[in-house]
């Protein structure tokens, strides 16, 4: 924690949704990769993501790797098996 940080009165946090500054993507050991040829755009992965890391862009569902923790719920439950979990490599 920053030493100069000022504690607000009553520990009020004035910036809603500020955890977006913290990227949880580094927690991941496996990354989900969507095969758009197979994807039927049902949105099940989006609805089941605990990290809100799948976004709808146009008519495509896109994974935000800044926040995806690699839990694998999306790959497990994809009805057409369009998501693969691939090991992260440096």
């Amino acid at each position, binding site marked *: 924690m920053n030493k100069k940080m000022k504690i607000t009165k009553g520990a009020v946090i004035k910036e809603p949704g500020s955890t*977006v500054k913290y990227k*949880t993507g580094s927690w991941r050991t496996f990354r989900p990769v969507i095969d758009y040829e197979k994807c039927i755009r049902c949105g099940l992965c989006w*609805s089941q993501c605990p990290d809100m*890391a799948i976004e709808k862009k146009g008519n495509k569902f896109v994974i935000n790797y800044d926040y995806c*923790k690699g839990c694998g*719920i999306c*790959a497990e439950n994809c009805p057409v098996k369009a998501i693969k979990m691939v090991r992260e490599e440096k």
Partner: protein
Amino acid sequence: MGLPREEYIASGHRACAGCGEILTIRHVLKASGKNTIVVNATGCAEVVTTPYPQTAWKIPWVHSAFENIAAVASGIDKGLECRGIRDKINLLAIGGDGASFDIGFGSLSGAIERGHKFTYIATDNEAYMNTGIQRSGATPLFANTTTSPAGKKIHGKIEPKKPLPLIVAAHGVSYVATISIADLPDLYAKVKKALKAEVVSFLHAFCPCVPGWKYPSSKTIEIAKKATATGVFPLYEIENGILKFTRKPAKLEPVNNYLKMQGRFKHLSQSEIRQIQNYVKERYNFLLSVENSKCFDTLFK
């Protein structure tokens, strides 16, 4: 899928990968909408969403201690009433199973008795997961936790789970329901109904926990599905004193299908699995026997 696209909880929260509790809260907030105030008891949800000076919440959120969540919500309820804006705002009290089944139960009971208006959501992950998996009143029979360890003397927790939804229903509240992330249409319908109630409404949410239940993080939804399919966590609602199943599996699966997915039950012997099976069956049959009858009707004010 027809679900609201707006998110009220932000990415970057510190919940474990595959957290069932955050997923539940995410959908409850989507169903409740932007005019919502949340009172949140100490517990996993509070710790992972608000690492000071950051917060994952995009709506007004108040932190309270374990024991006074319902009391704080009561105060906000009256405060909003005095300002004449009570009808425009959905007030949610979110507590874990420690806050709801054990420590905060007194204040919940008191708030119900005083006739306040808010929706209480017990996010039940069946132990004190935030402090390191200690058993709670919600921990099921024979589950291995750090304070009910499976060893030679005992095989996990020796007491069964407290039937909190039925206890709350016995207070005579107008809406009590169980919700699960495995069934989102059901969850949305129940949250909407709960928000319309004129007194305290109660939702019991089933939240699988990856480190506490010891299963691979990708199985969160599957475990929740199995819990309903085996009758461990039946989905029902008690509206105006009348109990109705909202999802009824044609035939219950053997409870072992649910138990064998989780590391906290891996020490079980065949006879213990049979004990759990009998226990689950008895509870389920009890619920079936009171379905559509006016069992809670006399208690309903």
